[in-house]
């Protein structure tokens, strides 16, 4: 956490100084008032009174001014720190591999960058300042108390012992409770997000009430955790209070006796008591501050859980950038194995495959055979667990990730669109693409429907592109890949949502693009195979056969089973 404070150390230092000054100003008022009572007022010295009043007024003005400025800067700094950390977490999340994101619900991540950071901010702007302030204040008050009457002051100081013990116990119990609550609040956001994102699925089945019940369960759990936390808090906070007032009572009695015996003046006693009253609320609020501190600590833990996760896919040391224009696009899989990290069975068990520059290779295989997994490897969305992949003879892990992903572009089987302008979606992989490139890509993907949208390319499309039809989404995603003009184009089942006629049009237009681009195309239909020069059949984690469609139809029964409609009659 410290590193995020470093840039603000001067500000923080200045702020804390101001806090201290603020305390001094605030604290110096009661003695002045006391002195005014003991001196001029008791003596009937009006001029003296005016003088004292002037001092009090000046101190008061200073106090108010300091209070204003310190609060002003306090929030500014705390919010700047919060925003900084948020940027860092966001940036880090973006580098984390997809495997991480599969596992973490968005709501959990979100609660870290909102709620948790909020808690940390509040602690910096409130709790921490308060802690500094009250520690300082208590020290100061104690010093003054010692000055006035040391024996009484020791009585006051003695109350620190039970306070400390209580505080320690509090820490132990409160931390886990706070953590549980924060985790649960992430869970609640997750359910909220999911049920909104999946609203169509929910409505299509009429499962609104079920989702509500599910949400209700999570929310109830959150509520119960909140209440549990309060039980823990109640035990120590209230004791803090009681100790503070017991200590006040003790000093009052003892002090009165001392006054009666002439060991202490009346003014001294009232000054003492007044000072001690000033000590009351910092102690009473200590529970609250500790709670905030605890919450900020667990919040920081939760954030570090994410920050400490290393991206699994990174540049290897010595990795070099490759210029896009220097890449020919010869892609080779050499004994590639892949296993998802919680699955002991390998999805890919030794794939050997070479794609020549400019060649188009189709990949066929049954549902779940690992096609998508295979094509996610060249752009390093996943890294093989065995073997290697080369691009123009270089292991792709020795190419800088950024330049590799510029060279290898994927259109996913599910169009992942964002609720941004069509243009922004289209130029996702190449922000510098000019109008001509965009139009050309739209033409290739037969996605010219975008011109009919209300604001053309500037129209904002709905979340996940859901204000478009399925085929429109897919074509837009295809156009997006085409815009990049990669050396290796990966298309994962790119035409599944298109009608036969449109499919043919797209294929025809794509052919030109594919002429000088290496391409991997996952296919499910014979119709898409037409795009490819060769087809590879993925079967049980290996490439079972490679060749031209017509050859394979003759030679490979597995291939026939996967891709031929002919055998349909067997079923009927």
């Amino acid at each position, binding site marked *: 956490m410290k590193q995020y404070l470093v840039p603000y150390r001067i500000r923080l230092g200045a702020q804390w100084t101001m806090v201290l000054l603020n305390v001094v100003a605030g604290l110096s008022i009661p003695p002045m008032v006391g002195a005014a009572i003991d001196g001029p007022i008791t003596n009937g010295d009006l001029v003296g009174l005016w003088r004292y009043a002037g001092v009090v*007024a000046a101190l008061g003005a200073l106090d108010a001014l300091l209070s204003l400025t310190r609060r002003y800067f306090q929030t500014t700094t705390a919010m700047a720190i919060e925003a900084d950390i948020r940027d860092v977490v*966001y940036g880090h999340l973006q580098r984390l591999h997809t495997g991480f994101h599969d596992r973490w619900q968005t709501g959990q991540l979100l609660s870290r960058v909102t709620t948790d950071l909020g808690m940390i901010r509040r602690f910096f*702007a409130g709790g921490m300042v308060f802690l500094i302030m009250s520690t300082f204040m208590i020290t100061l008050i104690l010093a003054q108390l010692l000055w006035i009457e040391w024996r009484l002051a020791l009585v006051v100081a003695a109350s620190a012992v039970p306070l400390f013990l209580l505080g320690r116990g509090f820490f132990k119990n409160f931390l886990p409770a706070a953590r549980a609550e924060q985790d649960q609040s992430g869970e609640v956001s997750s359910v909220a997000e999911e049920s909104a994102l999946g609203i169509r699925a929910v409505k299509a089945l009429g499962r609104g009430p079920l989702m509500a019940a599910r949400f209700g369960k999570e929310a109830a759990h959150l509520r119960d955790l909140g209440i549990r936390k309060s039980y823990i808090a109640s035990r120590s906070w209230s004791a803090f209070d009681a100790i503070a007032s017991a200590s006040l009572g003790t000093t009052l009695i003892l002090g009165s006796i001392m006054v009666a015996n002439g060991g202490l003046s009346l003014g001294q006693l009232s000054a003492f008591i007044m000072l001690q009253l000033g000590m009351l609320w910092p102690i009473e609020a200590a529970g609250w501050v500790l709670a905030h501190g605890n919450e900020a600590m667990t919040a920081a833990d939760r954030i570090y859980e994410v920050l400490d996760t290393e991206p699994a896919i990174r540049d290897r040391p010595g990795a070099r950038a490759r210029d896009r224009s220097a890449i020919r696009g010869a892609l080779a899989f050499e004994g590639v194995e892949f296993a998802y990290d919680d699955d002991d069975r390998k999805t890919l068990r030794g794939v050997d495959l070479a794609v020549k520059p400019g060649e188009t290779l189709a990949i066929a295989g049954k*549902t779940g055979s690992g096609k*998508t997994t295979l094509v996610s490897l060249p752009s390093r969305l996943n890294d093989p667990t065995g073997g290697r992949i080369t691009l123009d003879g270089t292991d792709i892990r020795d190419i800088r990730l950024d330049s590799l992903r510029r060279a290898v572009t994927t259109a996913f089987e599910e169009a*992942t669109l964002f609720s941004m302008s069509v243009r922004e979606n289209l130029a996702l*992989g190449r922000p510098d693409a000019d109008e001509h490139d965009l139009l050309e890509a739209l033409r290739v993907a037969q996605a010219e429907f975008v011109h009919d949208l209300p604001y053309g390319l500037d129209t904002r499309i709905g*979340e996940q592109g*859901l204000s478009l039809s399925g085929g429109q989404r897919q074509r837009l995603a295809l156009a997006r890949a085409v815009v990049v003009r990669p050396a290796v184009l990966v298309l994962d089942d790119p035409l599944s949502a298109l*009608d036969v006629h449109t499919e043919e049009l797209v294929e025809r237009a794509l052919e030109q693009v594919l002429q000088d681009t290496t391409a991997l195309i996952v296919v499910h239909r014979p119709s898409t195979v037409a795009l490819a020069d060769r087809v590879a059949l993925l079967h049980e984690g290996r490439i079972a056969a490679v060749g031209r469609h017509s050859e394979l139809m003759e030679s490979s029964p597995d291939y026939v089973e996967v891709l031929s409609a002919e055998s349909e009659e067997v079923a009927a």
Partner: protein
Amino acid sequence: MTAPVKHDDKHVAWRGRAESVEAERTSAELDDAAAIKRLRSRSRSLLGWMMRPHRRAIAFLVGILVVQNFASMAAPILVMVAIDSGIPAVRDDGDYSILVGIGVAFAVSAVLEYVSLRLYIVQSAKVGNAMLYALRNRVFWKFQRLSVSFHERFTSGRVTARQSSDMESIREMTENGMDDLVMAGLNIITITVVMLVIDPLLAAVTLLTFPLMVMLAKWFSRVSAIAYRRARETVAVLIVYFVESMGGIRAVQAYRREERDKEIFAKLNTDNRHAQAKGHHQNAFMSGGMKGIGHLATVVVLLFGGWQVMQGNTGVGVLAAFLLYMKRFFDPLNELVQFYNVLQSATAALEKLSGVVDEEIEVAEPDEPRSIECPRGEVRFDEVEFYYREDQRVLPGLSLHIPGGQTVALVGATGAGKTTVAKLVSRFYDPRGGTISLDGVDLRDLAEADLRDNVVMITQENFLFNGTIAENIELGKPGATREEIVEAAEVVGAHEFIEALPDGYDTHVRKRGGRLSAGQRQLVVFARAFLADPRVLILDEATSSLDIPSERLVQRALRTILADRTAIIIAHRLSTVEIADRVLVLEAGRITEDGPPEALIASGGDYAELHRQWEDSLV
């Protein structure tokens, strides 16, 4: 509707133009003064709704606070008694009884404070959490009932923002606020009374500062409402962006959008920071101002009171006590200023939430729902007109009758309106003109539960929920036994791959089903629909991601399952269409051909052409 959106700003251009400026808010959240006023009052009534069930508990809490307040109020009085009578008694008569009394009183008040505070903390947490719980559920349920078109423009990120950051704001208020509020209120009242009793004249002088404080509070209330309202917006935009880019992280990484994303996010983050800071800065001013006023009062009382003492009108003890009280009068006020800040922020959040709660449901439940006695699954479109945007009619006037039990295939070019037809039957939207009826009952009159029992659609997007495979299938029929679930999976041919997964049916599918392949997801969704067993089944491209063998398996299953069911099948793969009794060709929202597949092929129209193309593509 097409009000010009400021568009030249490079930083917002990426968002594109929404169809209307109101795209991202509930209609309650307009900008004009009258709307804001309405909003305020709605948020207040929402707050009232939250508090109403807890009236007694809240009264009890206030009671506790009163006790607590008096317990703590005792201290200065006891000090006064000690100084004015306790000390003289000991000094002059060696009489300790008063001091002992004071000691006892202190002990009692400490115990009282302990008990009451403890009670208070727990009770208030109970009330606060219960209120939030109710609000969360209410908002969730409302979101569930709001129409698909609402969600389309509102986005899930914003829903999440309402449920997370807005709720958080309110939680902050319920957590720390009430005691400050009540304490300060009580303080003001009791201390005013006490001061009036001790010395009316001095009290009157103190109270002169009141108008100043009110003015300051009014100023803050006005400006911070604007600031926090804006902050709610900026944080929502931030959350929307966060949620979306995390949801689409594959595309972000594959397209190297990280830098641009960071840039945009940083901008949104900064916007949000400034918006939040504004309110807090205003609060700093108010806080400093309040302190200043408090000190001013002290000075005045000191001068005036001192003069009074000199005149012999008041005792020193009285003045000392009075000054003590003043401290206790102003200190809580400073706390209250902090609370006021939290309150303003929470009110802004409540405004947003009340906007949601009051949003009109476009596809509303009927007031007097009709139910279908024995459903046959007959669907009728009568001159149905539909558009998403007024200038683009997707369905210009569709009439269609599907008798119960018929299997209809809907084919046509992409964007022709097939999904739209399906969504209309599922009542995602209501037609803009004409009627759609199920078994003779207008969908708009049909009870929601009845509709959903009878009509189930597999949407083009296969959505899996966080949970296990079994749980995802079970969604089709909550409470289904494991046997039923397995059976459904077997029927659609999903059983085999599920069994092969490490935990079988209990395998967790991860976020959006990321653990499964696209085809596997589709099969799971299919199994879900089969389990639902509706009268009318709508399949929108339900086999598009399957390989041919799986598709064939599904078709075989469909043949038996659809025998006595109404089905609308949308597919580009004509293999799926072959099991249909009847084919409808949709072109730009109009039915151009209608008949049994063989007949259409024979007739040589569009469908015959499509069919020919498709057959060609198979080789």
